[in-house]
């Protein structure tokens, strides 16, 4: 056991706390008046298997009837008139003035160093966790 774990255990023992006789009696008295609840039994199947088939088929039939009825009542879609729109109005023209960035050697070196630092830190945390647990 390491130093910290031992200290934590010792310090926990320093917390003075006892279950008083009065509390013990109270608990005993409460327990006497209680019944252990029976384990819940799975609910028994009350409906026959064919019930689900019949209800599924009825549902499908009703859905099909509604779809047909709605389609029969719906008016024919009228061809809409579309106004020609000038392309220049909808698509704003943009002038891109971008320059390609070139990574310099020191910057790339920096990224590699950072990645290496990250890997080392990750490894250290993993080792810490494995060592403790």
């Amino acid at each position, binding site marked *: 056991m390491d130093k910290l774990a031992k200290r934590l255990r010792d310090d926990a023992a320093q917390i003075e706390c006892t279950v008083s006789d009065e509390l013990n009696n109270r608990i005993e008295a409460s327990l006497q008046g209680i019944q252990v609840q029976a384990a819940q039994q799975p609910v028994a199947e009350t409906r026959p298997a064919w019930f689900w088939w019949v209800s599924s088929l009825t549902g499908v039939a009703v859905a099909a009837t509604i779809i047909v009825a709605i389609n029969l009542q719906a008016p024919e879609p009228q061809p809409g008139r579309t106004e020609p729109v000038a392309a220049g109005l909808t698509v704003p023209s943009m002038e891109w003035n971008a320059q390609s960035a070139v990574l310099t050697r020191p910057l790339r070196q920096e990224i590699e160093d950072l990645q290496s630092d990250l890997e080392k830190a990750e490894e250290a945390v993993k080792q810490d966790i494995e060592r403790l*647990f």
Partner: protein
Amino acid sequence: MSNEAALIAAAKNGSASAFSDLVRSYREGLLRFLLTRSSSYADAEDALQDTLINAYRYLNSYDPRWRFSTWLYRIAINNAAKNYTPPTIEIGELSDAENDPLLHCIAASERSNLWLTARRLFSDEVYAAMWLRYVEDMSVKDISSVLERSVSWTKVNLLRGRKALDADLNRETAANERKAYG
């Protein structure tokens, strides 16, 4: 069948005395744990009583694949949360720190107790994780089950807790050395 398993079986059949024997060894540890999650000593006692009553009432829902203590502590945490009433601060009191029931159970000479530091530094959940690990000797898996957290959350927070307390312990040691050598 172990003694604990035999007592559980008897308690499931309605023997309150078997249940009482079963939880006898857990009572003090549970009360000590509940003290850290209650606003007063009386609340902690009530939470202990409720925990044991609920454990007995719902004993049939206990899954023997888990340790009995894990299940008991889970119920204790739920009861403490249900019973917790935030302490009210009277006019004239500067803070509620002195009302901390944990503080009243630690002798004045032991005020450098690490659990008081932990109480100050950690959230309730991290504190509970540290307690279950270092006082109750629970495995990380059991702790994550009690706190309903993932195993990785538990591992990371135990590690952080350790580091924070280690730093505090080192500070204390350095201060003591300075005092000793003038």
